[in-house]
């Protein structure tokens, strides 16, 4: 049974409140996980587990958070910036995220800004949403 985008967002909100200890009003669609909500490496693991439970699906971590694979592959990163190959990989792994702003200066330190609450909702829509 397909789940509406609103319902997906609500459940994601609950997951992030539990995982990150933030208030629910801090969790907006544009909020970035690391920069706004204070998530760091260990939290990504926790978030994936909680989302799997909340939605009853399996979520391969690198599907939801492709950053780790991107950042650690020398073909995709050079001198602290994503290469053309890296950008291509990013587009493939996050098809519903607009990366035009990031592309202008693909500084790996700013990669975290792409991981927003919205990106999680977009991903889950492809898995459980009404298409």
């Amino acid at each position: 049974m397909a789940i509406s985008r609103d319902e997906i967002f609500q459940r994601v909100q609950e997951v992030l409140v539990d995982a990150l200890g933030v208030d629910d009003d801090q969790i907006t669609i544009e909020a970035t996980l690391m920069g706004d909500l204070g998530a760091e490496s260990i939290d990504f693991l926790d978030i994936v587990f909680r989302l799997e439970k909340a939605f009853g699906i399996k979520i391969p971590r690198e599907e939801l958070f492709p950053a780790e694979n991107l950042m650690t592959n020398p073909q995709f990163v050079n001198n602290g910036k994503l290469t053309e190959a890296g950008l291509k990989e990013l587009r493939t792994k996050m098809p519903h995220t607009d990366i035009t702003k990031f592309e202008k200066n693909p500084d790996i330190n700013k990669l975290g800004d792409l991981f927003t609450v919205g990106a999680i909702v977009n991903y889950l829509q492809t898995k459980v949403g009404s298409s």
Partner: protein
Amino acid sequence: MQLGPPVRNTRNKKAKKGWKNDRFWYIVLRYFADCAIAGDRKSMRFILIDKVVLLESGKQIKAVKGVSLAEEYLADHFPTFPVLPGVFLLEGLIESASWLVREAENFAHSMILLEDARNIKYKSFLAPGSQIEYVVQAKTIEENVSSFTGFGISGGEQIVEGRLGLRHFNLADENPAMATVDAQIIENMKKQWKLLWH
């Protein structure tokens, strides 16, 4: 030396009651106290700041940390892209705040623990070869509790920021037999302070 409940649980407002059990924490604190007395660097002891560069007693502290490729935890975080884990950036802020308390209260308490960490944000990564400067300002420092805002900056880039609450006490407050343990911990803290601020 930072002790206390795991940072993640203290951030979570719905943290379970289990870890607040006094007896449990007595045992944990006793273990860490023993390590502190032994001054044993091989046991679990973190030092996430290298030097204090500015001190306004009771008000503000600035401390720096250089990130070295030799830090063992970097090997896994991440193998081809080493960066200081977020929890250690937070630990740097906590240690800076703790030293501000110790100096202000003239090392009155052996135990200074994180009570809560709020609005923590990780803005940028910190890689080996960088130096981060933690700037922590006290909002209040009372006898047993204190609160701070702080941030870490490196090369003009904001790395981490947030708000912290600490609590401070002596083990002897609960158990007078621990007074000598308190004294030894305080001695060690005074020695460490001489290495950080001179």
